[in-house]
């Protein structure tokens, strides 16, 4: 079997008496979309935080791109190629959409310690960033400050930034949240093409999107993975039905 891009083994995280992550083992294989679902309070956010580095796990390992990243900083993991979008949009609000993506491009190039050339006249940086904006369909809004973008546009911008980072894996935290039906459909189409760039670990509540996109699904309940499998396997799994799916199945 091909080595997974992201391998999480026996991850444990306690907050005092609360066991938020209870021995989670999960992997992300090349070319796949692996959806992570679970009821509210299951610990999905906590898990994402540990994977991308904002929280330190208590025990267990996280391997990414062949390296053990458990002790690496957020920025360090990002430099290795872990691209993340946020449940609540995280952008530089005063900067335009373009300048946000340019930030990602310069981060990718590792060239943040240049002091003398104005970025807004740096053709190379601008062109690369505009190309990313074009892929997500935001070119018309390139010069608008991020704070003034609509909810859906901010999502697109986040993905443009992740693209600019040439991520080796995407960690998407509820990208469908707050999108109307049109927005969800086009984002679903987009994510379908995105998987060719890099595998996606998709945390989602929107079951239509999950069933349309996922190659595999893992179900997280009270910090434990109770089932991992294909869409069909999960639909039929009795434990999952009782714990979570209800009449979605």
């Amino acid at each position, binding site marked *: 079997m091909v080595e997974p891009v992201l391998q999480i083994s026996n991850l444990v995280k306690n907050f005092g008496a609360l066991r938020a992550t209870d021995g989670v083992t999960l992997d992300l294989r090349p070319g796949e979309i692996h959806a992570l679902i679970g009821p509210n309070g299951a610990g999905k956010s906590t898990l994402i935080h540990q994977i*991308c*580095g*904002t929280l330190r796990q208590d025990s267990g390992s996280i391997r990414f791109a062949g390296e053990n990243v458990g002790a690496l*900083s*957020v*920025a*360090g993991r*990002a*430099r290795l190629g872990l691209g*993340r979008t946020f449940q609540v949009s*995280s*952008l*530089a*609000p*005063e*900067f*335009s959409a373009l*300048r946000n993506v*340019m*930030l*990602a491009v*310069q*981060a*990718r190039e590792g*060239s*943040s*310690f*240049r*002091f*003398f*050339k*104005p*970025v*807004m006249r*740096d053709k190379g*940086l601008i062109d690369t960033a505009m190309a990313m904006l074009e892929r997500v369909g935001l070119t018309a809004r390139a010069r608008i*400050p991020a704070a003034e973008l609509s909810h859906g546009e901010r999502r697109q911008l986040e993905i443009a*930034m992740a693209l600019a*980072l040439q991520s080796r894996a995407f960690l998407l935290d509820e990208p469908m949240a707050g999108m109307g039906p049109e927005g969800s459909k086009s984002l679903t189409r987009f994510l379908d093409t995105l998987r060719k760039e890099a595998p996606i670990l998709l945390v989602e509540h929107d079951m239509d999107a999950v069933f349309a996109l996922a190659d595999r699904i893992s179900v997280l309940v009270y910090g434990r993975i109770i089932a991992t499998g294909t869409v069909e396997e999960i639909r039929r799994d009795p434990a999952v039905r009782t714990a979570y799916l209800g009449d979605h199945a």
Partner: protein
Amino acid sequence: MLSRENLVNLVLAAALLAVPLAANALGQPFYVTLATRIAILALAATGLNLALGLGGLVSFGHAAFFGIGGYAAGILATHGFSGDPLIFGLPGTNQMWVIWIVAVVVAGLVGLAIGAISLRTSGVYFIMITLAFAQMVYYFAVSWPAYGGEDGLSILVRNQFPGVMTMRPLSFFLICYVILLIGIGLFALIRASRFGSALQAARQNEVRVATVGIEPYRIRLTGFVISAMMTGLAGALFADLNRFVSPSMLSWHMSGELIVLIILGGTGRLFGPLAGAALYVAFEYALGGLTERWQFFLGLILLVVVLFARGGLLGLLAGKARHG
């Protein structure tokens, strides 16, 4: 076509040059000295603006760097006069440009030390710890009698600069003016650069910067050090202006004053520090002439600005800032 802000900036720069030129022609050197004071304070505040305006780092201890620059000038000049060697047998000097280099380097090194520790904290803690470090330097200066202690240190004759009669108020002003313009130019370059992008992004959203792969700590520390160096240079000039250095350059009132200069003019604005310095010195002079209690009114004005006119003078004159 100039933007409104750039127009205001041009007027400010021209006014700062015109006033001392006119004053000199009219035989009023006092106003030349006043303008020099404005220029030097503007440079000090521009330095702080790199950390505060761009980086969002509320340093309540930048007086440390201002004072270090001042003492560098004072100590070197004193040894330059007396001929006694400094440490390690090195001589003092009365050449301004050498003093400037020393001031910048020492302020930078101290900035590195203070920043390295302080930037591990954030928010209120950062404000407090920068204040405390500056206090440390202050008390050190007060209790070091060799260089004047609490009474301060005099520079007998203004230091020299090749080809310039530095004793003449207008000549010294022009030196300070040119350095200020260079400082502002550097600020503009840094702000527009990749580094500046990262620094400002870190202010706006630290998590975002980390998740694109840039370590916020490294960016901030670099910004802090550059900021310290610029403020240190201003301190050296200030010492030469007054031909006197004292621990008051290191006091927390001075740190507060530097922040006030930026707020009065407009945080993060290119010419904010200059506008703020001009306003401040004008208040000091105009109000001080009216009443000994002028600081009360300064406090009142500052309070009103903070509560109601947050964008400072440039916010009022030039509208909202654009970031590209």
